[in-house]
């Protein structure tokens, strides 16, 4: 959030810079570096506590409570594979949105498929669908008896994926803001930096999910 703020500082006129690069882009890469450490800590914690829950439900194994109640493995791989696919595709939409802004008015960027508005909205919608999947997943887990308090798995799982989901939500807000700017005044090639910043953030959130999907969902 702090960087999103800094990232938009309007250095519109061409101020001299040492490297010739945009200040905001340096700041967002520093921010992404910082996020590596944040998610590194969250993922480390998840892995350190893997298999240490004293009660179920558990991610990959069935669990029978002392009262004899049987809990199935709780992770739903087909549903999460679908949401993973949606998030991966959103990254494609995102690069197409950036390309559309950078090349606005050039040949090959006419019509709907060359429209930055279309791709920005598509990315935001894909992000929203991912969040809807996550909301479905969280509520079904709660119905099956797993909350953030139940056991170490619940605690670390909801925290890790919740942090990721919050990042996606911030990204959706950012994308929608860009979409409305595009609607209102139209994003021109000189505004590409605004989309580029959001795109870098968005792809980073995507690669974090690539890691989470493998470490949390697939590896048992």
């Amino acid at each position: 959030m702090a960087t999103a703020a800094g990232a938009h500082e309007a250095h519109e006129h061409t101020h001299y810079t040492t490297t010739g690069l945009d200040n905001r882009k340096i700041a967002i890469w520093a921010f992404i570096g910082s996020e590596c450490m944040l998610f590194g800590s969250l993922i480390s914690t998840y892995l350190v506590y893997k298999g240490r829950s004293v009660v179920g439900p558990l991610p990959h194994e069935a669990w029978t409570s002392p009262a004899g109640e049987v809990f199935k493995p709780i992770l739903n791989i087909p549903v999460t594979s679908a949401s993973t696919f949606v998030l991966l595709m959103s990254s494609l939409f995102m690069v197409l949105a950036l390309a559309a802004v950078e090349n606005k008015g050039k040949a090959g960027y006419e019509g709907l498929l060359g429209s930055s508005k279309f791709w920005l909205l598509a990315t935001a919608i894909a992000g929203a669908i991912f969040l809807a999947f996550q909301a479905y997943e969280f509520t079904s887990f709660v119905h099956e008896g797993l909350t953030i308090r139940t056991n170490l798995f619940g605690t670390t799982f909801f925290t890790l994926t919740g942090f990721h989901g919050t990042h996606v939500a911030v990204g959706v807000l950012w994308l929608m803001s860009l979409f409305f700017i595009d609607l209102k005044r139209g994003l021109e090639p000189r505004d590409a930096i605004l989309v580029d910043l959001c795109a870098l953030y968005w792809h980073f959130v995507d690669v974090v999910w690539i890691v989470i999907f493998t470490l949390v969902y697939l590896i048992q």
Partner: protein
Amino acid sequence: METSSAIPTHDASEQSGIWSWITTVDHKRIGILYLYTALFYLLVGGLEALLIRTQLAKPNLSVVSAETYNQLFTMHGTTMVFLVVMPLSAAFFNYLIPLQIGARDVAFPRLNAFSYWVYALGGLFITLPIFFGIAPNGGWFGYAPLSGPTFGGGFNMDFWVLGLQILGISSLAAAFNFITTIINLRAPGMTLMRMPMFTWMSFVVQFLVVLAFPVITAALFFLQFDRFFGTNFYEVQAGGDPLLWQHLFWVFGHPEVYILILPAFGLVSEVLPTHSRKPLFGYNVMAYSGIMIGFLGFGVWAHHMFAVGMGPVADSIFSVATMLIGLPTGVKIFNWIATMYGGSLRFPVSMKFAIGLIAMFTIGGISGVMHSSPPSDLQQTDTYFIVAHFHYVLYGGAMMGIFAGIYHYFPKITGRFMSERLGNWQFWLNFIGLNLTFFPMHFSGMLGMPRRIYTYDAGQGWDLFNLMSTAGTYLLLVAGLIFAYNFFKSRVSGAPASSDPWGAPTLEWSIPSPPPDYNFAQIPEVTSRYPMWDLKAPDRTAGIEHSHADAADIADAHAAPMHEETERRTAKELGIPMPFNTIKPFLVALGIVVMFSGMIVLHMGKFPLAMATMLGGGVFMVASLYAWLTSPLE
């Protein structure tokens, strides 16, 4: 030293009044805000220490209760680390980095104001509870499970957990800002290896902040969730491991040590060459050793935890890494001494403090290397020996360096000198007081006196050492009062200082004191590591390879040849666009603090009010943020 007769005159257009300070985005004014705020907290943290030492002056005193004592030592540590030394460093980052690299401001001036306001409001958030007896009481390291819901159920540690989250936002935002500033706003010709050493050390520190603070953020979120939502991160009965807290805390905590000390190293690296009238010895090695310290700083954290029993392999690895990190630090000590060797030395107060740092930090550094050996550490851990060690490093090191910086840069900031006579009194009282306070702690610690106890029985051999420590603390108080008097008096009636009162080598001394709001009327072209000496004392730099000047660097269209600016005109006359003052960063900071306060209300059990506070604060923050982002900078 040269003084000019001209009394500094302020531009008629220069703004004044409280509103101009709340809305300022000028890095120099923000630096001054940091300086005053941090000095205020230095008084708070110092008084806390004074109460602690008064309680421990003799066996079985009851000046304060055990509970109050816990709050005092927790807040003393928290205040000094997060509200004093880091912000004092931030004051210098703000004031000096743009001046030293030849920039008109930082990369994101409004983000800079935001960082300050988050710090100022967050500082109040974490400090005010002590007046109501509900201040944090679980130590500045907040070890779980003492800080968790089971054993720390009151409001106390809520303020600590939430307060540190708030302060972390400030440090991170500032770090992104300074990284960008140093990479991207250097004047033409100011290559990395021509940057003043203070800027170099600051650069390293910003990366430490960027990499260390997310880890404490995660650890604090876990603790916060345990406290407020009943999660199991540090709950043993659910299989959780309190050692996770310790590991995460020290992954942050050890780089934090370097975050505290490296800026002070940078400051004395400016003071020593200036008053030795000789270039810094081994500049390149100084820069590289700073990077080495920063890098190795991430691989030594578990030496704070030898006592928990990690096994011989982990103990050995962290022990060796800790010994290694002593090398680049030792290199710095030797380079400072070599800088002075053969120089034509002057001893103003700033130089005395700088030399004081070398001596005192060496003592703290040596006891630090003693702890790097696990068998030895097991005898010392959690005793006053450790307290002695880190106070030599942080008071004898960081604070002495910062005092050196204040005396050195006061003429630049205010256009007036601080009194040397009072400064000498302060230095010597401070020097004696600090050794009287902390040196005996080595002995009381080796005799077995544990840290954090609120009183002790007579006859264990600790009585005399404790009395000495307490007496020393009162000397430090006197030294502090002299400093405060000197500071405020000199601001008004100190001897006027010229733009380059010490004959220093770097860019910040090429512009008037105090600098005009735009800093440089013309951005200078930098062709050397010591541009001011090239102009004024070329003999000092003649024999030394100190720059990588090549044809491509020379005659950049953006810059004027290196020169000293003496004229003082307004930005308007010069046609330099200045950023608008704005209240929005303050409002965003306010929204964040209100949002966090909602968690305290939640703990009171008033769910609807808590939700209203958090949502209200959150919406206010987002609205202010949008208003900020959609309004032009200048």
